């Protein structure tokens, strides 16, 4: 309850991006460089602050602060525990990369100022979700996240973008409403909204109301986490510019949903109540189905970004599964995957974005031989894809290993089968892309290659980002790589995926985290 | 039952009048008749008040030095209704002025006809 000395770090983490957004809004539409600088600063600031808060945490002085008393019970409260900082660190770091990448991706397009302003605000919302110290704060930032990401999703302002945006906002608002219902349920059960390690509701008898409350939370956060029956918006939202798909729909938004589920399960219900009320068991059935069905849907999808979206649906399931299995190894595996998946998936999306920008191709069937023209991009793509499947030394294998061990340990044999099967499915939908890109000959005359007129127009949107970053170069000239602002973040992040597979420091942190629960 | 109704005949009248008034207000299409209905309903309530204040066998509320202990009827309802009548008159006047305005616009006092005309006129715009 007390406010610690470093409380301002948490508040600054949330407010610096707001300041950044305001500055960006005040800058002119044409002042691209200044905008980039401000954008990066607004993302680097939180990274540094998160590092600082991690150090304080290491010293045994976790940051908590009651920022504002809205009314009785309704408090705006931040607390930077390990779980929150893990998510905050991942999101803010990737934000820096995305800001740079977006600058290249959108250069010269319309409404760039609006885009960067809201990108920065989305960071605020994500940091708020990560550092929220009670349910009310979590709800505020969860709701805010929907609103501030909406302009990013419909950035292109095409008819299709508007339709997808509508779907997105409807799903999001319904999800937030369910979360609110869960909060009211919590009020009925306990009359408090503060998170507690071990569970706010610990000691409450399992009842219909407990299950209902849990269902509301899981469905409410599950909408953003794209748990299978609630995933409809995610493939649709791929109409957004690729950085948005990468950041929001691989990292910030969907992970906020997953994070919300984790937060609520661990800090509101607590392990014991979860086990007693059978929440974990019921949830793992839904999630397992989501994992498998997501992968199967990905197999059938020809549009690259949409295939990646389905892959996200399936991979997010791993994280939640880790928690529902209720043992230390699986939980560590789930949390490691929170990090690993974020980095790998953002690389995959960034590569898809580069392909769209440089060649205008959005479909997998159009990618023959693309690896020969864009070796660096497709190299990174292949690396991340290997990681997704679980091939060492790219980081994906670590999380899968832990999860499998956890499942075996818990003697959940069906889940073991699901995890293995899903890995095979991952291979089945990622390897064909890589094989096609590197082993088939490059084809010039692919239909839908024309910039701006790509096929169903799924991924790229109407104004055609093609050529925007190209400084007048012919849009689809083969043999070119993307501009540096786009390529460098990808290459760096691809290296990070390998580093995460080899370097064990994050694992140590996560094991500490799990021990704390 | 009948005897009680007969004894309280002013109230019975008030209720009958009230129902007639409200029915006229709601069921008739003619705007003037609506206003008349409103007035009938209002009058019914006034009657109710007056009847309430009256006590049979008592005197009108004028203090007479010759009968210092005489019992009077309750004067308050009558006083209230005086105000009520004033209010009703002003409401009626206001309503009539609006009806006049509508008549100038549409050339009819029939509410249904006005609705029909309006939809035609709105389409023209």
């Amino acid at each position, binding site marked *: 309850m007390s406010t610690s000395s470093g409380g301002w770090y948490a508040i600054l983490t949330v407010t610096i991006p707001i300041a950044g957004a305001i500055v960006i809004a005040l800058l002119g539409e044409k002042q691209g460089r200044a905008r980039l600088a401000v954008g990066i600063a607004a993302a680097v600031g939180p990274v540094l602050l998160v590092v600082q808060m991690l150090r304080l945490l290491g010293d045994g002085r976790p940051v908590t602060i009651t920022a504002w008393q809205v*009314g009785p019970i309704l408090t705006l409260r931040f607390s930077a525990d390990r779980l929150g900082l893990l998510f905050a660190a991942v999101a803010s770091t990737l934000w820096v990369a995305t800001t740079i990448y977006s600058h290249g991706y959108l250069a010269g397009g319309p409404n760039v100022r609006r885009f960067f302003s809201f990108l920065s605000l989305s960071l605020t919302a994500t940091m708020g979700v990560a550092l929220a110290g009670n349910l009310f704060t979590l709800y505020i930032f969860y709701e805010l996240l929907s609103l501030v990401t909406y302009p990013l999703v419909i950035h292109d302002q095409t008819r299709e973008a508007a339709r997808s945006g509508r779907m997105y906002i409807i799903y999001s*608002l319904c999800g937030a409403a369910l979360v609110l219902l869960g909060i009211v349920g919590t009020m009925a059960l306990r009359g408090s909204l503060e998170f507690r390690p071990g569970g706010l509701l610990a000691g409450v008898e399992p009842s219909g109301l407990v299950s209902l409350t849990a269902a509301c939370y899981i469905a409410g956060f599950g909408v953003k986490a794209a748990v299978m029956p609630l995933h409809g918006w995610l493939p649709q939202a791929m109409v957004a510019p690729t950085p948005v798909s990468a950041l929001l729909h691989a990292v910030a938004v969907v992970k906020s949903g997953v994070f919300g589920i984790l937060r609520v399960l661990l800090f509101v219900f607590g392990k014991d109540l979860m086990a007693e009320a059978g929440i974990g068991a019921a949830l793992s059935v839904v999630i397992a189905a989501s994992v498998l069905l997501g992968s199967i849907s990905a197999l059938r999808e020809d549009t690259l970004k949409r295939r990646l979206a389905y892959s996200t649906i399936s991979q997010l399931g791993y994280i939640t599964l880790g928690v529902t299995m209720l043992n230390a190894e699986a939980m560590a595996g789930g949390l490691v995957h929170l990090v690993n998946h974020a980095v790998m998936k953002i690389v995959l999306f960034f590569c898809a974005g580069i392909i769209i920008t440089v060649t205008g191709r959005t479909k997998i069937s159009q990618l023959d031989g693309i690896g020969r023209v864009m070796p660096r991009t497709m190299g990174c793509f292949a690396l991340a894809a290997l990681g997704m499947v679980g091939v060492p030394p790219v980081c994906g294998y670590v999380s899968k290993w832990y999860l499998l061990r956890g499942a075996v340990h818990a003697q959940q044999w069906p889940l073991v089968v699901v995890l293995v099967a899903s890995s095979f499915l991952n291979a089945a939908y990622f390897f064909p892309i890589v094989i096609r890109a590197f082993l088939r000959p490059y084809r010039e005359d692919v239909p839908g290659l024309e910039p701006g007129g790509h096929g169903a127009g799924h991924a790229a949107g109407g104004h055609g980002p093609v050529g925007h970053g190209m400084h007048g170069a012919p849009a689809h000239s083969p043999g070119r790589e993307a501009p540096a602002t786009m390529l460098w973040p990808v290459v760096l992040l691809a290296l990070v995926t390998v580093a995460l597979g080899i370097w064990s420091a994050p694992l140590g942190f996560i094991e500490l985290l799990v021990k704390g629960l | 039952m009948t005897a009680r109704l007969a004894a309280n005949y002013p109230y019975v009248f008030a209720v009958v009048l009230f129902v007639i008034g409200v029915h006229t207000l709601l069921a008739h299409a003619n705007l003037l008749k*609506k206003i008349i209905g*409103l007035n009938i309903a209002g009058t019914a*309530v006034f009657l109710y008040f007056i009847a309430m204040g009256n006590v049979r066998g008592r005197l009108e509320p004028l203090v007479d030095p010759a009968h210092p202990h005489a019992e009077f009827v309750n004067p308050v*309802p009558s006083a209230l209704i005086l105000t009520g009548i004033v209010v009703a008159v002003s409401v009626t006047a206001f309503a009539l002025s609006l009806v006049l305005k509508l008549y100038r616009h549409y050339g009819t006092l029939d509410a249904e006809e006005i609705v029909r005309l309006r939809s035609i006129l709105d389409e023209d715009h």
Partner: protein
Amino acid sequence: MRITDHFPLTIVVGTLLGAYLSPIVGHVRRRWLPPFAVGVTLLALIQAIQLNIRVRDCGELTYQLGGWPAPWGIELLVGPAAALMVLVLAAISTLIAVYCMAYIDHEVAPHAQSWYYAAFLLLLAGMLGMAVTNDLFNTFVMMEITTIGACALVAAKDSRRAAEAALRYLLLASLASTLILLGIGMIYMITGNLNLTYLTRELETVWRQYPRLATTSLGLLTLGFALKAALFPLHVWLPEAHSAAPTPSSAMLSGLVVKIYAFSLIKMNYVVFRPILGIVAPLRELLILLSAAAIIGGSLFALVQDDIKRLLAYSTVAQVGYIFLGAGLGTPSAVMAAFFQIISHSIMKTCLFLSAGIIAERTGRRKIALMDGMGRVLPLTSAAFTVAALSMIGLPLLSGFIAKWHLFLGGLEAERPVFIGLILMSGLLNAAYYLPVIWRFYFVEPQVCPVIHGDPAGDAGALGAPGSWPPPGIRRRILSRLEAPLPMLLPVVALALACIVLGVWTGPTIAHLAGVAQTIIGGPGR
């Protein structure tokens, strides 16, 4: 005897006097009218603030009219609830009066303006009177003043639509008045008192003798006030009246008039008829059901509107449902939510109507389909509209959320969780009709750029006579950059900020309202 002792009377009489004087002022110099009206409302506002301070410090304040003691004379009584209501009425109408300074010419013909202001102030006086009076018949008289003032405000616009809407409003409102008068008659018949305090005291003993007459009386009063407050399905008059009226009138009607009737309804049910509270449970049940129907029905109707003011009017039907729901549930949190909603909705809806008015005045557009790109043309107005609309949807950190939150708690207290789901659903429905408007404001490029009426550079004439300070050159440079005249912009922005403040900093308001709710449902006999 302190001067504040007289404020319950002077706040009403002063405003009433202002109403009578405004035709004269208008006759002498029409340009003096708008500042005159602002002055009168401001005076009421100052008194309202003083009254609140007084009531907070010294408890409720009674005032015997003409020195006649109760129960013979007319008594005014300002408790915490009435003081709050008076403050809301005075504050919002001051802002609307300020708005009128620049707006009035747009929708009200010059010759009608002095009468418009007369009706405006008459309406305010009537509402203030309803809030402070402690006499049943006086309530009726004040209510009639309110009704006539409100209808006149609708009729002030010289259009056939307005005249028709006003007539329908007048007829139904008068019917409601007749019902209420009948109810007053019945309760007077069994208690012999018109003073509410004495009436309640009397009722405690006599209701057992005349239970049917007492309940019928309360039923009639409730029905009458519900009709006037447009409780679904008695709302038929509202959408047309609120949308055909000139915009400041719409704001008055939606923001305040509906609320004062709701307030009176709560007062009658919980304070005056408290002795029979136990036997009229079915009535409250009916109120709850109807408010549920209002919350959903009003929103569904709003969903299909293409005119922004009609949309706002139907939204009022839905939002009034929250007040009645809170009143019907009757638990401390629920009643508090009802009061919070009275305040919060007055602010939000006034802001929405006034900003819709700016859009109509500047660009001539009222159809939602023509709102494309308004965020760029009228940035401040659109921002204010957006804030108020998001508050309507019930997003956290805005005032609408706080009202909903306490309704949730009220639902929990009353152990009727179904209404929690209902309110959540209504929030989503609100989103369904407000978000498309906001979407058009910001995310659709205008097909044809809306024309801003009035020459922004040459507006100095309207802003003040040349020669005044600061010199016209500077004034023009500052003011020409504004999207609308300052008197219009200021209230809208202030109201939007109030939405935020009330949503972010609710502690004191909640504490105060909890006290108010306590006096309404749990306090001593009066």
